[in-house]
């Protein structure tokens, strides 16, 4: 019966579908219109130590089958998150709740994680892969030593489950993954957005004030699958895969590539109530394939040779 349930480093999830950070806000607007259900988990928008107003200029640009964004971590800051947002999330959302944390330096990440001891989050996702801020963010996810250094400091601060979110812009994402595992990450999520460039021909200027912005959506799915395949073969901790997922079939691909669970970001902008539909699709898939549980397929990609 329960073909979708799973355990993600000790955390039981009703299904492997997790709403990705920045693409579901704090879930409250969706809850208000009755469209927040169906998720195994929901990841919050990135939370930083101080409130941030985000980037100037254009923030969204659609490309064929993709979306570029340069939001720049606009968020109310950890204190307002704890006082005003978190209690409502717990009350209004029935999924597992994961808090995404970012910062412009090691100390800021530490301050936020330290303050989050005040909430009973099911997991913390450490965002070392945001390409849209000038300081911090992705800078921590490009180099194995820097990433490992940050994760081990955070590990020393908290007993909460830590999921570290990797950047596909790293020269060697497997090396970063291994360093994070070594430093005490409970699981890894990947990928965050790919850095790209959009050009406005009429003005001969970049579309985004920050020059580069992050590409997400179906356009990145094959690149993301490759990263998930490589990382999940190299590490022992669970991998949460993402990048361009918009259907049950896409979820199965990520699980075959080695993911335990998946996150879904941009596709939330294509349709309200997506999780329920994909979960229904996955249940039908399990029935058709005679699977007791979807996890039986994990890492089951049949590679020649």
């Amino acid at each position: 019966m329960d073909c979708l349930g799973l355990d993600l480093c000790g955390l039981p999830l009703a299904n492997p579908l997790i709403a990705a950070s920045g693409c579901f806000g704090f879930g409250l607007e969706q809850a208000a219109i009755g469209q927040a259900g169906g998720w195994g988990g929901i990841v919050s928008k990135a939370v930083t130590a101080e409130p941030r107003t985000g980037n100037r200029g254009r923030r969204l640009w659609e490309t064929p089958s993709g979306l570029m964004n340069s939001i720049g971590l606009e968020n109310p800051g950890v204190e307002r998150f704890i006082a005003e947002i978190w209690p409502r999330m717990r009350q209004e959302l029935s999924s597992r709740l994961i808090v995404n944390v970012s910062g412009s330096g090691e100390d800021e990440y530490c301050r936020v994680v330290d303050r989050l001891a005040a909430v009973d989050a099911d997991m913390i996702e450490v965002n070392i892969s945001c390409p849209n801020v000038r300081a911090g963010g992705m800078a921590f996810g490009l180099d194995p030593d820097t990433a490992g250094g940050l994760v081990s400091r955070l590990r020393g601060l908290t007993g909460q489950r830590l999921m570290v979110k990797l950047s596909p812009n790293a020269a060697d994402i497997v090396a970063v993954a291994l360093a994070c595992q070594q430093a005490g990450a409970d699981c890894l999520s990947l990928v965050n957005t790919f850095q790209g460039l959009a050009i406005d021909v009429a003005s001969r200027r970049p579309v985004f004030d920050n020059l580069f912005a992050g590409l997400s959506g179906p356009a990145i799915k094959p690149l993301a699958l490759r990263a998930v395949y490589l990382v999940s073969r190299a590490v022992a901790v669970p991998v949460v895969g993402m990048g361009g997922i918009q259907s049950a079939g896409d979820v199965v691909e990520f699980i075959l590539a080695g993911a335990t669970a998946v996150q879904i970001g941009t596709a939330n902008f294509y349709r309200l109530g997506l999780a329920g539909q994909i979960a229904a699709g996955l249940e039908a898939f399990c029935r058709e394939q005679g699977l007791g549980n979807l996890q039986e397929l994990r890492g089951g990609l049949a590679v020649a040779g």
Partner: protein
Amino acid sequence: MGCESRVVEIVDNRRWFEPAGYRLTVTAGRGEVAAGQFAGLTIPGAPSRLGRPLAVYEADDQHWQFVYQVCGAGTGALAAMPPGSRLECHGPFGRELPWPGRPGRVALVAGGAGIGAFLLAARHLRRQGCAVDLLAGFAELPPDLDEFVRLGVEVRPASEAGRPGWPVYPTDYLDDRTYDWVYACGPRPLLRAVGHHPRLDKQRTYLLLDENMACCLGTCRGCVVDTVHGKRAVCADGPAFPAGWLTSL
């Protein structure tokens, strides 16, 4: 309530004004729609997958109508869809327009397809006892605006192509009458002209903004504008804002 994604069928999709202005009717029907609200339409076959935001022009128990201008791949593909085709429709999103608390004289200033936001607005304002003028600017000629006339709205047309007795821009009409409240929807230059108009009270002049959108719920922070009260999301806090709030118009 009633904000959801649903598959709708095109009942009618016709050229309504030149150049490339269309009027679309789909089966939607469920849920109340307030003036100012918009829907997202996912257009099959277009390279874009995000719903194209369009103001709901008219809504009844069975249908929603839209007015749109072809200006890119999505609206271009939409214009080629015959009656009977299906597409996904998301919403309604956005807030109801802010209303004057009492009767007075109101101008609805529309540039091209910007008129799409104003039929529901005109109906509401007339019910509130306001005198309503529709200052409607088009590149060439306006379509038949009898729906507005039947509501008791005075239609004041303008044409960039030039017509004897008509001004070139709808904003030219703002000089010869005093309006207590003004709503404007259309291209940026029109919004700027209205927002900076010396005769208008900036707190009673509402501009309906257009920004690129993704979530349409206020959560992704992709469509924000700078206001005197900080960043505001056009999709969820708007689409209408008092001109006096906007710090970069």
